[in-house]
């Protein structure tokens, strides 16, 4: 019997977030529970499992039918490449490999202190990838270009839960 099954049992229904690089499980967890629709979800967090692909990985299992779209986008920002699986009757119903979105709407704060989005209340920030690798993004307002890892994430906005 594998170490994984011993520590976190299979779930009948819910969401499994797998292949999280070790150390990023906690930030992903914080992004999930910051959303009002996921704040009280029952969940299990596993840290530092051995992984052939990653060396070590984290794992999250959630008792929820689907994750809100903005939470999925946050997860993709924190750790592109993680796998999100929807489990129904102990089987994998759907599986996604999360990619950084091409368009980041209200997901990150503009780093330019003189950008209008940092002064005028109620404006959504918008960043668009400027290359296929999606490592550099351009602010649609002030037109500054930043590397994705330079941008500070905004907390997940409230929204209805949507299926992916």
């Amino acid at each position, binding site marked *: 019997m594998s170490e994984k099954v011993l520590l976190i049992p299979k779930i009948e229904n819910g969401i499994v977030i797998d292949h999280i690089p070790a150390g990023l499980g906690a930030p992903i967890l914080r992004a999930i529970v910051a959303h009002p629709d996921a704040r009280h979800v029952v969940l299990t967090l596993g840290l530092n499992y051995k992984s052939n692909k990653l060396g070590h990985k984290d794992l999250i299992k959630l008792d929820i039918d689907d994750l809100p779209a903005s939470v999925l986008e946050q997860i993709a920002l924190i750790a592109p490449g993680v796998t999100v699986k929807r489990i129904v009757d102990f089987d994998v119903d759907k599986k996604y490999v999360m990619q950084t979105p091409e368009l980041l709407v209200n997901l990150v704060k503009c780093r*330019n202190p003189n*950008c*209008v989005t940092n002064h005028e209340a109620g404006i959504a920030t918008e960043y668009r990838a400027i290359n296929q690798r999606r490592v550099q993004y351009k602010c649609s307002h002030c037109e500054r270009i930043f590397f994705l890892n330079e941008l500070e994430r905004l907390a997940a906005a409230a929204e209805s839960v949507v299926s992916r």
Partner: protein
Amino acid sequence: MTKDLISINDLTTDEIHGLLDLSAKVEAMPLAERVQMLRGNVLGVMFFEPSTRTRLSFEAAMARLGGSVVGFSETGSTSVVKGESLADTVRTLECYSDVMVIRHPWEGAARLAASVSKVPVINAGDGSNQHPTQTLLDLYTLRKFFGKIGGLKVAFVGDLKYGRTVHSLVHALMMFGDVQMTLVSPEALQLPDYLKIEAANRGVVLNETTDLAEAVRSCDAVYMTRIQKERFADLVEYEKVKNSFCLTAKALEEAQEHMKVLHPLPRVTEIASDVDSTRHAGYFEQVRNGVVMRQAILLTLLGVRP
């Protein structure tokens, strides 16, 4: 062309050429004919920052097309001082005008204005970001002087870090892939990295130097900007560089005969007054071109074709 003119990056090279062609057409029209074209239209102007040429040339452009102007050139007498948001100020002026012009110290302010306004919005400068109408008149001036834009060698001199006219024009010239650009500035005032990244992404080579004399000798046009004293933390540094980037009639003796000096103005000491009477002075012609280019922009956004 889209509903608004916010950034030179929103335009294709065909659209830029279309505006340059329309400017030439407008310039050739008799004044009596021009003054009928926008009769009954109102231009709303919102200047949250000081301006001489941009505001006056927009007002002159609209008046000479037969339209009228409402708005403000400083915020002291408006509800902005009461804390009214930018979006609400835009929505208010939108009710009184057919087209709007905005200058604002925040980068992206014009983009926000365009997103809340139903009437066309023209960016007259947003922080250190874009100044597309200046860029278009600069391009028009270059084309008038040289008959082309592609293939030119253009030097930018002075404050390349904070000058939005430089940022906009560098953006635009990148679209004409075969323009060779030379950047001449003190180390503290070099072109921002994000523009250099954009140039690299487009495969455009920017030559950086501190040798103004070489740039004067080799380029077709030298685009001067003012070195702003207030940008220097150490005034000794300012004193060191301020005279290194000054053009005099003597310094222009080695320039090619056709070379033109441009400047978005106002100038202080970076172009000596003895340059004004040389064949190289192009900056007052540049100011004159601002009116026809802005007329072409107003006509285009209001859907009026001559």
